[in-house]
């Protein structure tokens, strides 16, 4: 019996690890992709200026206008929707926001953190990624016109503050043993556990609140 339960626990541990690494890998791929685009743009910047100067020197107004229009379109594909000032936060937020939008979820964000955070990028990535994934999953149970995620990030003194709100189909949710239970059935809810573990390891604070069809998670993480 003991052997069986140990085996079972080990299998769960492995599944948590698999889930996490899979999640991270996806996030990093999205991040890298965005940076590659940005680097390419920077690299070409001088060439573009040079080309524009030549057109201007030749008095080719038509050519100038065409070139600028082309650049504008090109830039739009690189330009980030969200600029918090923190590169990693930007990347993860932007990739998750475009994922949410592709699922017909409206995202309202107000995020400003142009300081270098002390916490590791992996932890930040995991926390924001998990918050978004959970909020997206919950939103999908609602009709498209009711899907809305609110993201707020700011510094509270020297601590990073993150607040996520999504609307839910179910009413007020009850806690079981001081915890909100996952609604995704057995074998899910790893995201919730891992987020709690990261926040606890960093001496942070995490609060979940479910009220009137809205679910809010608030997090404080010390940076000093």
């Amino acid at each position, binding site marked *: 019996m003991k052997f069986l339960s140990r085996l079972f626990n080990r299998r769960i541990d492995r599944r948590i690890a698999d889930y996490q690494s899979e999640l991270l890998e996806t996030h990093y791929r999205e991040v890298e992709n965005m940076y590659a685009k940005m680097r390419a743009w920077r690299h070409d910047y001088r060439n573009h200026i040079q080309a524009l100067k030549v057109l201007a020197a030749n008095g080719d107004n038509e050519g100038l206008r065409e070139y600028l229009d082309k650049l504008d379109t090109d830039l739009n594909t690189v330009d980030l929707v969200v600029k918090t000032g923190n590169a990693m936060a930007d990347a993860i937020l932007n990739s998750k926001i475009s994922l949410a939008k592709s699922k017909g979820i409206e995202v309202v964000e107000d995020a400003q*953190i142009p300081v270098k955070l002390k916490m590791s990028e992996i932890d930040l990535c995991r926390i924001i990624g998990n918050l978004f994934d959970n909020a997206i999953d919950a939103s999908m149970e609602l009709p498209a016109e009711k899907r809305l995620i609110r993201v707020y990030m700011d510094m509270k*003194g*020297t601590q990073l*503050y993150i607040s996520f709100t999504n609307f839910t189909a179910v009413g007020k949710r009850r806690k079981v043993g001081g915890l909100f239970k996952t609604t995704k059935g057995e074998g899910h809810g790893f995201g919730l556990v891992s987020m709690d573990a990261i926040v606890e390891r960093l001496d942070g604070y995490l609060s979940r609140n479910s009220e009137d069809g809205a679910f809010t998670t608030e997090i404080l993480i010390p940076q000093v």
Partner: protein
Amino acid sequence: MTYRVAICDDDEMDSSYVKACLCSWASSRKANVVVDVFPSAESFLFKNDGGGGYDILLLDIEMGLMDGVELARRVRANDKAVQIVFITGYSDYISEGYDVEALHYLMKPVKESKLFEVLDKAASKVQGNARVLTLELGGGIVRVPIYEVQYLEVYGNYVTIHANQDIVVKKTLAEFEKELGEGFYRIGRSYIVNLKMVRRVTKSQVLLANGKALSIPRGAYETLNRAIIMQG
């Protein structure tokens, strides 16, 4: 109320835009502002050696030789009360600016409504900073600026105010709690902490900016963190 404000930005278009926003903020709030504009950190320091005595600084981060964070650090060394707001363009890397205790970071292009919000917050902090604790000691009266206070600690009928120096007076913690008001938080029977000084809260302790760790009772972890979130 008149606010002394300095804008420091190497981009003239940006600084004149911020100046225009600042002036329309002042007229909408019926406040007076005296504005100085500097094109570099060096020119600011050349004119204002000891910090300049400004109420609010609006600083660009990426400037020529010395950046806005370093400028803020130099001013902060002499002036604990000034409200520092960074206004910055996008960058892959922005240096750590925790030690200068900035009020806020704004991204360019700055929305007027967002700048108004931050100026409101700065103005109320400036007014708050003018507040002092007036303490009666045996020999006379001591005035301690409220922003210097780290925490207060009760011992019998006495309270110790831990600020730049420690001052002991005969008074109750409840009286201080009422006098200090917003921005301060009472922990159990023994302490009142300045929320601005809190660096982290663990389940059993609160760590302050001066390195001091205070034990907190069960239940305070939740309420103290809520207070930090609410003080904005």
